[in-house]
């Protein structure tokens, strides 16, 4: 188990180096997909390496000349990485420009400054009523598949697609199993380790990641841990598109809280929902995208309340509070948050919000907020 965790810590410490090395080892092209909703199974089926684009950990420099300071962290960091030439290993890039306005920043900037040999823009729809939404999603995915076929010069058969979907589904089940064990014995992993485990799945080849997870799960199942009864269970929610600073996760734990489960994008949201393998693979991928839960504020869903989902998760885990993490300048989340907060108030739930910025100058302010939160919910 420790060996696997060390390996995962290493790859997540330098995803750039890891992916560049992977590309060399496998002699395959790398396609970066901007998070959160691109079905990268199709890229995998095209015998390419799909990776979910990440937020780097360096302050933005050259990127300032291309994107305003009031764009979210991953937008600025990704553009910065790109224009500084740090993403030269990406042969292609895919953007779903309808997720939020900021996701629309990229294609033009990349065309002008990075010129990946393959670039695709997807317009995945909001989850609105009418058959037209599913039909259009399938049209988009067909176009995506065709563009990849043109890029590689090879057809993607349904068989290939089904195989890739199976590998991805397996990865989802394994991640779910990791979470299941963590729910039973939350002391088994540090929150940063859990985030690293999910994050590494986003840029490792899924087959490789599945092997790691299988080994990890064996270790986790065998390991006994001393329950830390005095720890206060909390559920972090949100943090769309990007990794939360690991220091914030450590801070939560250092303050006497423990995370038995989460509702984070680089967390349980990433692997939620399997792709159904019964019918046409593109239809099945469309159906996964069109699933309303977990509620994603970028998808135009109003029939289910995100707050209800978070409260359920909290209660299922005997947790005592919810910590919303909003990425600074993430409008989809920021627009939703007031209603999320009202729901917490109506239901008498202990909840707090912290804002995550790309460049954290000091953790003091966050620490103070979390400290009072933990005092309120009955900690030290």
């Amino acid at each position: 188990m420790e060996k696997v965790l060390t390996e995962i810590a290493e790859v997540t410490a330098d995803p750039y180096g890891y992916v560049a090395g992977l590309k060399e080892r496998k002699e395959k092209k790398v396609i970066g997909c901007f998070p959160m909703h691109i079905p990268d199974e199709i890229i995998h089926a095209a015998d390419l390496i799909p990776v979910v684009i990440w937020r780097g950990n360096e302050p933005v420099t050259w990127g300032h000349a291309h994107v305003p300071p009031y764009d979210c962290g991953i937008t600025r960091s990704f553009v910065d990485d790109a224009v500084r030439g740090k993403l030269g290993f990406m042969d292609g890039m895919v953007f779903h420009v309808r997720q939020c306005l900021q996701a629309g920043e990229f294609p033009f900037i990349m065309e002008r400054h990075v010129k990946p040999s393959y670039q695709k823009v997807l317009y995945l729809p909001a989850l609105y009523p009418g058959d037209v939404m599913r039909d259009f999603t399938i049209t988009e995915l067909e176009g995506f598949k065709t563009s990849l076929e043109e890029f590689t010069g090879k057809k993607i058969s349904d068989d290939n697609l089904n195989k890739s979907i199976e590998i991805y589904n397996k990865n989802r089940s394994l991640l779910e199993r990791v979470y299941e064990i963590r729910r039973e014995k939350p002391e088994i992993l540090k929150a940063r380790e859990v985030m690293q485990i999910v994050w590494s799945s986003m840029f490792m080849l899924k087959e490789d990641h599945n092997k790691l997870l299988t080994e990890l799960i064996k270790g986790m199942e065998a390991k006994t841990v001393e329950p830390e009864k005095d720890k206060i269970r909390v559920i972090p929610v949100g943090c769309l598109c990007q990794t939360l600073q690991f220091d914030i996760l450590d801070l939560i734990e250092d303050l006497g809280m423990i995370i038995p489960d989460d509702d984070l994008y680089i967390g349980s949201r990433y692997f939620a929902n399997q792709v159904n393998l019964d019918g046409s693979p593109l239809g099945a991928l469309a159906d996964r995208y069109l699933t309303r839960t977990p509620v994603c504020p970028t998808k135009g869903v109003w029939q289910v309340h995100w707050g209800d989902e978070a409260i359920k998760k909290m209660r299922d885990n005997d947790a005592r509070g919810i910590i919303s993490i909003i990425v600074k300048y993430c409008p989809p989340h920021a627009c939703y948050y007031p209603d999320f907060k009202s729901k917490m108030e109506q239901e008498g739930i202990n909840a707090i919000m912290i804002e995550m910025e790309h460049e954290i100058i000091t953790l003091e302010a966050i620490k103070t907020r979390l400290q009072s939160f933990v005092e309120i919910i009955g900690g030290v």
Partner: protein
Amino acid sequence: MDVKYKVNRLQTTNEIRPLVDKHWADLRTAKERGEKVAWASGPTFIFAYAMGMKCHFMAGYSAYCGGIGAGEEVLKVAEMTGDLPETCSYHRLHMGMGEAVARGIDINPQAILPMPDLMVAGRLCPEMSHYAEGLNRRFGIRILPIDLPSVYDLKDQPRLREFVYRQFKEVVIPTVEDVCGKPFDYDRMSEILTVLKEVATLRNQCWEFFKTKPACWTLWDYGVSIAPVFYLMGNPAGVAYYKRLLKELQERKEKGIPAIAPDGEKYRLYWDGWLPWAFLGKFMRKFTPNGAVCLCGRYPWEFFPHPELIDPEHPVETWADLYYGEGRLTYNFSPHGTVDLISELIEDYSIDGLVMFSSKTCRIMNLSQPEVIDVLDKKYGIPGVIVEGDMIDPAMISDAQIETRLEALYEMIDSRRR
């Protein structure tokens, strides 16, 4: 000696306020008359209008609210009731207004609208969806959502047109029929389009007077004249308004009266982004004393610049085509479309410089603005600057920053002239 520039105000534009006030007053009292009310965002209100609903429009309401000076107090209510300052100010205005009504908080009564029977939520920008969802969650308003992607690449346009057209036919029309309890009124939609075509044609003739040197009027004058091609759509009063405006501009040209005294502009500028509704006067005071005049812009050109494409005989198809066909109205929101449109405007209106207004809370027109400046500078040798701010929220506006950037622009234009 320094020239003292000052605006020559148009007479006709004084006539717009009563028209606009009447629109909002009719909307406020619609329920008392038993009329159905809709709210709309994106290019969707025509469907509610066709059914005889009184209808608000998200950006139109925000402009109105800013224009009557109610923006700040409504934004305060939004903040007090939990909205976050980084969400778009149009979103916050609606939440603030809704909360003020729901909680009985005192705000300017002119800024209060009746809660709608239906919200026609066109998701041209994803935040239009967030606002509709929020209003549904908080006040239970029925939503008719329509996904309206802006076109990144023209080759994507046909399939997006089909997607949007199907939504009009399969979702929008059946829903408004259901809400109003009657069949969709295609004839009324055609009538609205007939009036729109006439108004937009007259408006285009007025645009010719931006081309003259010196220019006869300013983009700000056109900004306050937008309602007839926008939410006063279908109202014949718009035809009368633009006829008078055209006459006044013709007279100005004949008499040699420029938009700014004494003898017209020194800098002819393009304005990108929304108009800063609550701060039109503020910006005017930063342009005029320097002899600078904004003459064209992306947002004001969103209102049917090609009336010849409007075909009232095929109302629903024409509506789809205006936005996703030859009309290309949503393409202009993407950087490629922006470059194409601004290129045309630079050539048609002999532009000297670009002012790219970047709203801190609405990024729809901000996309790739620095790139667009660079492309156009390389193509035409015309400088551009980004001016940060907001359409409504005074907390987002910095005088010093605006002045510094505009001064830099004037200097760049001067140095290139030398």
